[in-house]
């Protein structure tokens, strides 16, 4: 599989990572080397094998539907970059 500079830019956009035009060629070279390593997976016949997503077969537990946590909004927001009136502030999205 051949990755292109356009792929790098597309992936960076999807991952919300700014990659500058000067950085992109080096990122491409390193990703290509890593994908060459990963490519070996394609050589295996996995027909009929069930994917393994977890090491233990566990089912999600259910608990009683009652409030167990206290409201710690203020504490949690005390470490945020920007808050006002209990809200997290980000740049304006809708004009």
């Amino acid at each position, binding site marked *: 599989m051949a990755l292109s500079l356009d792929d790098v830019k597309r992936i960076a956009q999807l991952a*919300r990572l700014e990659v500058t035009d000067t950085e992109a060629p080096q990122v491409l070279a390193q990703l290509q*080397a890593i994908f060459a390593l990963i490519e070996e997976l394609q050589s295996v016949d996995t027909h009929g094998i069930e994917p393994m997503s977890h090491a233990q077969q566990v089912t999600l537990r259910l608990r009683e539907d009652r409030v167990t946590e206290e409201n710690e909004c203020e504490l949690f927001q005390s470490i945020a*970059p920007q808050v006002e009136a209990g809200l997290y502030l980000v*740049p304006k999205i809708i004009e």
Partner: protein
Amino acid sequence: MINASLSELAQALAGKQISSVELTQLFLERAQRLNPGLNAFVTLDPEASLAQARAADERISDGQLQSLTGVPVALKDIFCTKGWLTTCGSKILSNFVAPYDAHVVEKLKGAGAVSLGKTNMDEFAMGSSSETSYYGPVRNPWDRNTVAGGSSGGSAAAVAARLVPAALGTDTGGSIRQPAALCGISGLKPTYGVVSRYGMIAFASSLDQCGPMAKSAADLAVLLTAVAGFDPRDSTSLERPSEDYGRDLERSIRGLRIGLPREFFGEGLAADVGQAVETAVAGFQRLGCQVVEVRLPQTRLCIPAYYVLAPAEASSNLARFDGVRYGYRAPEYTDLRDMYMKTRAQGFGAEVKRRIMIGTYVLSHGYYDAYYLQAQKVRRLIAQEFAEAFKLCDVIMGPTAPTTAFQLGAKTADPVQMYLNDIYTVPAPLAGIPALSIPCGFGDNDLPVGLQIMGNYFQEARMLGVAHQYQRTTDWHLRAPAGFG
């Protein structure tokens, strides 16, 4: 006292030969004096540690002594600690003070242990040399020009240099065992689900597990017993009765069947490491163990599968670092998307960005089946192979890492070379089985070699017993680096 085992420390504390305050001062003084040459700790807070030590001394006076009461323990900087920075080795969390303690931190506090500080690590636990830390590389106390291994390199170096008696680390693809091997200490990655990950910053959630790092297997048993156990706040925590992981320490290993996988002794294994591991296996034979050959032919696929699955999960887990609720935010940006992109570009280091991009790609439309799903199927084959092998043997042994500690900077420019260093450590977390590393000799350059012992699910107590029986007849685990013992 700096070379004492955890049980010796507990006895000295119980017998009032030393107080927890004195013990904590002893290790704090060493940490403050010696850490600048190692960079093993990123946070030391003597005042807070000594306050915990004073509380522990009161508990001891009241006769409320547990195995770790008053004993200093270091925490990898991946565990949330109320009131202390938790940076995960990253700039993006350089100002993050968690509002709560991780489950294992609560457990240690509950047992009266003293938190000695937070240890350095590869950024978000992504690395095999502790060089990707935003706070600079950890140096190996055996040779300060070599790496300490990673990602729990700070915990390993701190224990090896006797800056702390024991530490907690985390292991996703070898991050406890490989630094333990390179620093000449013991380290255990438990079965997936045995230790709660509540408050442990996530890297790859189907693989991550917390475990103990210490000088000996007996010490690992003490620490694991203290931190393991069910926690409803971690959905992958297993509901099992609590265990005494030291129960098999004195059990005979006569007749134990040791599986040796040929695939762990092939190309890529340094001759000096292979020699030390074979000598260790011969030592087990003299203790009455039998050696059987087992086959793990999928070993060659473990690195490719791991470097699809772990980055995929990481790309999802690390989406939360966006400069909105906590951590670093870029100072200048034009709009919301630009704020995300600049915050993450400036906040993450090169290796973390690389893995996020690999993960994003293998999960993206049109590639999911070919990479992510295929890697999950290969993972099943790997787990099945271990299940077959454990029909023939009780434990599997091999090298922990292909070489002894390598030079700082030797592999930082070539990510693939760094990844290949994980060849013997990624199989166990992929299968979800427990695995440990203990010191078993020295290589040509007088640097430590680690022996890896893998066991079937929930065999930690037995594996620790096997390791302890070896350590009863050898002294590799008692050796300290020159100037630190």
